[in-house]
């Protein structure tokens, strides 16, 4: 029965639920694309702090892609004579598909709001990456044997828990990445968008309500697509089906079928005995 019970664990504690800390304790990062100069210090600081393999100095013409050794990078877009940049990494959703489909319990909701990750528990199934609305998680290892391990930004969990900022935020020299309480950052972000609106009518704050609220917020000058962000990211319906429908169906169907078949044997046995077919 434990087996059946565990088929679907719908009781993952959401960061915004009453089981957890209140909204005022939620941490977040605010990324202001207008202040980003593309220095890649966030990228380097992430690699340095997390001991990730270093690569050649990145350039906007050939920006590094997210990989098991690259948890944060810059999305570069031509802008007049130069470039604009948007920091790209895990968005730390409040309603995170990766957490919901992770059967190993490697991904979980931190009480501080971000999506925590314990690589020791990861079995490398890759369901997280296939369900992430932003396509962030990456697998290393051998896909034929399935001996793999997922990697993604973990919000510098140890640093944040110890009261420090994430390495990328600390490294940012222009204030394009700020770390703090989510509520405060939303207020700041809205204020900044208000300042930009005159010159850039499409300016917006991204992440306030997307997927029940992201823990990486963006001040954008233009619509999200321009920065490689989905306008309206969705929790995949297949994840909901796997989580809330398939498990319960199995838990009902199997005992019902087994009981029906057992009943059939009993009835058949008694009736056959009555007319002397079994003894």
């Amino acid at each position, binding site marked *: 029965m*434990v*087996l059946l019970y*565990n*088929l*679907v*664990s719908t009781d993952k504690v959401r960061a915004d639920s009453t089981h957890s800390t209140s909204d005022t304790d939620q941490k977040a990062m605010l990324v202001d694309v207008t202040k980003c100069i593309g220095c890649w210090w966030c990228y380097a600081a992430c690699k340095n702090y997390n001991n990730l393999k270093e690569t050649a100095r990145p350039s906007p013409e050939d920006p590094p892609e997210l990989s098991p050794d690259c948890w944060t990078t810059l999305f570069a877009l031509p802008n007049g004579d130069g470039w604009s940049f948007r920091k790209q990494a895990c968005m730390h959703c409040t309603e995170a598909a990766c957490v919901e489909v992770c*059967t*190993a*319990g490697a991904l979980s909701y931190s009480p501080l709001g971000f999506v925590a990750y314990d690589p*020791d*528990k*990861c*079995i*490398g*199934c*890759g*369901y997280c*990456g*296939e*369900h*992430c609305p932003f*396509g962030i998680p990456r697998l290393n290892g051998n*896909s*034929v*044997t*399935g*001996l793999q391990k997922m990697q993604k930004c973990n919000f510098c969990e140890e640093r944040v828990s110890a009261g420090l900022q994430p390495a990328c935020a600390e490294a940012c020299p222009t204030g394009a990445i700020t770390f703090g309480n989510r509520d405060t950052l939303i207020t700041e972000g809205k204020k900044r968008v208000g300042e930009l609106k005159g010159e850039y009518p499409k300016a917006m704050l991204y992440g306030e309500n997307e997927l029940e609220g992201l823990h990486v917020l963006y001040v954008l000058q233009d619509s999200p697509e321009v920065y490689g962000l989905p306008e309206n990211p969705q929790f*995949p319906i*297949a*994840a909901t*089906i*796997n989580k809330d429908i*398939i*498990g319960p*169906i*199995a838990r009902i*169907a*199997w005992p019902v*079928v*087994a009981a029906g*078949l*057992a009943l*059939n*044997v009993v*009835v*058949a*046995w*008694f*009736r*056959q005995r009555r*007319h002397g*077919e*079994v003894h």
Partner: protein
Amino acid sequence: MELVERYTKRARWFHWLIAAVFIELVISGMLIFIPWITSDTIGSVTRILHRVGAVILVGAPLLYAIFDWRGAWEFIREGLTWGKEDLEWLKAAPGYYFGGDPRMMPPQGYINTGMKLYRVAIFGGAVFFVITGFIMWFLKGIVPAAVFQWCLVLHDVTFIVAICMFFLHFQLGVFHPRMDESILSMYDGKVSGMYARSHHGKWYEKVAKNNNKEGSSST
């Protein structure tokens, strides 16, 4: 006592191999849903075991078809040959399987309609498992994420149905009082003449006729 051969040695070995692989796939597949078992190491091992099982599940029938393509073809043909008698089986089945008068069931061939349905179901199930499994194993990151997501859903739905079919197969083969020679026949390949006549009347007639012919020609 008269004994009739029902399953060749190759068919019986094949049956038990597939049975073992099925159980192995069920266990290694279900473990992924139990977080406290799927730690790093065991989780990886079960995923390798699931892949090994999948290779055998695909490879064994192909090998069988190479060694005995006639038998393999017959297996498929029998399952796909449907007629008016199948409707009569369906009508008589509830009473028959709930221990009613066995004479209400019209004489059946080598396999009856229920067995045909089962063959179609396990074949269809295997196709679903293999296609969705192949995509998730080899095409992860190549096909769009939505394709992967729905393969996962389909793989799981097929699994739920497959377990129900397995329960039914197990119940009929092992526990059902009317199929009292079923499990033994998958062990030694034979059923009694009486069982053959009452359960597979049309087939028994054919077998008996052949036996008579052989008997008379040898004298």
